[in-house]
């Protein structure tokens, strides 16, 4: 039987109240949102907060909006809300692709976007998707608000730059970073973490044959900061040809540092990282050109199980 250790509980009534509580309880407190990452960690004693500060009732942090080319996602938005939001259609399809294969439909009703990224699991899907999109993280504290590029947000496995007394409130994405985007994941079964996954967000320049800026996110394969910068550098200014997309995938595969574990040997994961990067690039280019959403995913993540 797995139950969390003894813990105190406080319920925040507003963002300001949450920040007051976080400042009062200091480093022994943890923020509780959907609880779908934190409670399993507490059962395993991998997290042992003395106080939980429940922000689950703060409706002001659950929103998805898009205006003036900027997508804003409140930290308390559930995976299901993000998946269903019309604001992420089109240019931000990478988020729909990713959300479709995160956990399962019941977990997605409760797990939150902010909770997932703050968990900073090295296999987390949204971390790679937001890295591809070059998202901006908005962090509040009693002193005010600061912003951090998502690629500087993760301090290591299960660790972020969100400090004592601080709260991630929002994630922002600029549409200019993404004219076409896609996410490709292979997992062992429905609801599992990825064996490997890759996300791409890119823009096409002028004549729509040349890649302007490409963001490539990788997860579960030991890529520093959840991205493949050498492959991004390679693609910048290159023609969006099959040859160049394949080469970028190869560079991404060389860049990642997977480990062998129960999900597969390292060389398999490295191969998969390259292949999934290529697939995501092809699909993102097709979407940028307006050739429809591309073929629906048929990977093992949706095979097996019920």
């Amino acid at each position: 039987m797995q139950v969390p250790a003894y813990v105190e509980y406080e319920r925040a009534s507003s963002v300001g109240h949450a920040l007051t509580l976080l400042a009062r309880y200091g480093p022994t407190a943890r923020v509780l949102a959907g609880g779908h990452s934190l409670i399993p960690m507490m059962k395993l004693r991998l997290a042992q907060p003395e106080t939980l500060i429940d922000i689950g009732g703060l409706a002001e942090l659950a929103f998805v909006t898009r205006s003036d080319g900027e997508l804003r996602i409140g930290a308390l938005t559930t995976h299901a809300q993000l998946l269903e939001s019309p604001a992420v259609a089109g240019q931000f399809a990478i988020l729909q692709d990713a959300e479709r294969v995160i956990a399962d439909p019941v977990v997605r009703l409760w797990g939150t976007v902010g909770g997932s990224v703050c968990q900073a699991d090295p296999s987390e899907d949204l971390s790679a998707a937001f890295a591809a999109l070059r998202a901006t993280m908005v962090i509040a504290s009693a002193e005010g608000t600061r912003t951090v590029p998502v690629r500087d947000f993760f301090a290591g496995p299960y660790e972020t730059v969100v400090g004592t007394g601080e709260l991630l409130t929002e994630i922002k994405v600029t549409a200019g970073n993404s004219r076409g985007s896609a996410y490709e994941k292979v997992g062992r079964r429905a609801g599992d973490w990825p064996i490997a996954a890759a996300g791409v967000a890119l823009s096409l320049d002028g004549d729509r044959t040349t890649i302007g800026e490409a963001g490539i996110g990788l997860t579960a394969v030991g890529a520093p900061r959840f991205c493949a910068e050498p492959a991004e550098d390679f693609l910048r200014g290159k023609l969006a040809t099959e040859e160049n997309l394949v080469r970028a995938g190869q560079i991404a595969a060389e860049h990642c540092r997977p480990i062998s574990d129960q999900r597969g040997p390292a060389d398999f994961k490295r191969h998969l990282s390259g292949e999934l990067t290529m697939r995501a690039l092809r699909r993102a280019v097709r979407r940028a050109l307006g050739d429809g959403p591309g073929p629906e995913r048929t990977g093992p993540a949706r095979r097996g199980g019920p």
Partner: protein
Amino acid sequence: MRIKVNVNGADCSREVEPRLLLIHFLRDDLGLTGSHWGCDTSNCGACVVWLDERPVKSCTVLAVMADGRRIRTVEGLARDGDLDPVQVGFARCHGLQCGFCTPGMMLTARWLLDHDPDPPPAAIREALSGQVCRCTGYENIVRAVRWAAQHPAVEPQRPDGEAR
């Protein structure tokens, strides 16, 4: 800490430790043992109940998180003595063998049908993809949900199987 919840239409108030999981609150404090405690890791879905209007794996939320909310368990699926069409479908289509996964399956199926009254088999499989059945191979579960979709409460059934 004292929490107040409405469980299957009845208000109740209890003193609980903040670390108490919702599944244990329902089973051990309230005696509602229809919700099953399975894997404890949010993988199997045997513990699914509704919290307000959404199914949740009750091994992965704290009872204190349910304070002020409505909970619906399998004991609250029948209405006024009439089985829910999902329950009738599981009985008619042999959607269970050992029955361990069944309460959770039925609560998620009810939620699915409330949002998508005529789901194709693929949508049923997707909705139930976070819930594990080791008996049926899922075929009869999908048939049971399809049966419920085709018989939306038109044929009220007594729990003993006699039509009214």
